[in-house]
């Protein structure tokens, strides 16, 4: 890695954790304009997001710092789309996500959408208070291999098990993987298996890795490879 690239990543990291959103976006925009947005995103932003995600997962960064990272990613994606509106690059997905029935805590889900989109995923976001059958209906409709369900509280997280039951009932388990996340899942990781989840991650930045893993697992279940 060149010294310049290392310095740029370091500067971007500092901008994000100090909540200097404008300066972070400016740094990436200069690089995007001078070289390419693909370079700015994949060579500079993504490694920084990985570092932030790891620190956040280990409680060394705050939700607000993760939020700033999300906003920077969102801003630069818009600029990237404006710069090359017809670029399809290697789109992944689609995947379906939403907050489970009775859950209205949207921030985590919205951040997951941003980071998945930044990683090239096509995301169908069903919003808040989504019934278990609606998740599975939509996954079938768009041929999604991953459903991501968010819940903040234990009471609402209990409804996730009905997504699993619906997948089982339709013979889709294995074909469609169930990602679960949210504050209560972080507090009580044992809920992942008891609610029927196939995987989780501790924060939104780590969602793309989780969805990569689950997508590959779905393909493997059908004897296919990515």
């Amino acid at each position, binding site marked *: 890695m060149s010294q310049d690239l290392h310095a740029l990543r370091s500067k971007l990291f500092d901008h994000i954790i100090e909540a200097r959103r404008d300066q972070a976006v400016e740094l990436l925009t200069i690089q995007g304009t001078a070289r390419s947005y693909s370079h700015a995103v994949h060579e500079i932003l993504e490694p920084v997001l990985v570092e932030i995600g790891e620190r956040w997962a280990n409680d060394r960064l*705050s939700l*607000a*710092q993760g939020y*700033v990272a999300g906003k920077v990613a969102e801003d630069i994606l818009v600029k990237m789309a404006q710069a090359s509106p017809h670029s399809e690059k290697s789109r992944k997905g689609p995947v379906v996500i939403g907050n489970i029935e009775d859950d209205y*805590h949207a*921030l985590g889900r919205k951040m997951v959408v941003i980071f998945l989109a930044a990683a090239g995923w096509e995301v169908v976001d069903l919003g808040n208070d989504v019934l278990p059958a609606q998740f599975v209906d939509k996954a079938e409709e768009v041929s999604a291999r991953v459903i991501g369900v968010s819940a903040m*509280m234990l*009471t609402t997280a209990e409804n996730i098990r009905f997504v699993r039951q619906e997948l089982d009932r339709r013979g889709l388990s294995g074909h469609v993987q169930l990602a679960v996340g949210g504050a209560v899942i972080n507090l*009580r990781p044992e809920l992942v298996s008891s609610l029927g989840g196939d995987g989780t991650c501790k924060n939104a930045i780590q969602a793309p890795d989780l969805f990569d893993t689950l997508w590959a697992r779905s393909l493997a279940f059908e004897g296919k490879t990515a």
Partner: protein
Amino acid sequence: MNSRERVFLTVQGDPVDRRAFSLILSLYGAKLTNCPLSEYYASPEKYLAGQRAVLELADPDILFAPFALPLEARAFGCTLKHFDTAPPNVIRPACKGLSDLAALHAPNVTDDSGLRYLVEATRLLVREFGGDKPVAALLTAPMDLPAPLVSMGDWIEALLFDAGKREELFSLASDHFVALATAFFEVGASFVVIPAMFTNPQFLNPKLVGEYVIPALARAFSRVPGPIVFHHGGNPLVPHLGLVRDLPNVLGFALDHRDSFAQTRAAVGEGPVLLGNLSGPHLPGFSPAEAYVRTRNIMLTLACDPRSIFCTSSADIPWSTPLETIKAVVAAVLDAGKEGA
């Protein structure tokens, strides 16, 4: 020695007959009395009946007024949803975002039905049990209240990027906070408990917590006419105790189940009372035997700290917790008392 004497001697660091204890059984009172939650969180008399049942079940040394913080948000215009087995929660903010703050108005404690319920339930608890037991009231920290009012994302946006809106929201929330806390003390609450999220570096950049949130919170706390217990708010407290330990009027700290009593004590000194730290939300997953052992282990760690009180940490004990598990926790506390732990 009754519960009131036991708790107040603990606050002073004086000897007591056994360790004071409590469990957050605000919600559970409804289960014990088969009371629909839409009625339980609207009728002070039904809440009182629920807490009578809690006394029958556990006889804790401290009673809690309703743990229903979203009622405060509703008073500002938020929409709530009621659940069959959990306290109500906010499903829609009070305004359309940071550009719509003019739509927000601070409610009057005596005019809003939800706030009147919180204060009246506290008054009834004090009237019936206050001679024997301290009554603790809970309310939303002023830096946390804006989150449901404008949405969590918009509040973070204001905290990070819009000092004017940040100040406007904090001022509104602070005035409400002081008014409601004052009302609780006027009806006899012994202390108020303030769960706090946005003082925690897991939520907010430590620099912003230190430079803005703590000074603003100190101004609000200094206007409260009674003692405050600073509650961990769902995340460990120890890593940021240095930021909050000198806040005014703080009588003690409620610890997260992942916190260490010894580390907390080392950080805050001998004065403050420490409460905790058996996780309430985890209780449904424990067998009675496991809950008993965990409680005994915590009691052992408290043995050498005279200013500590055993309590459940985090939120209310969930509805699904078996009665036997709660009884096991109480038995463990009392057994430890008999053995002098």
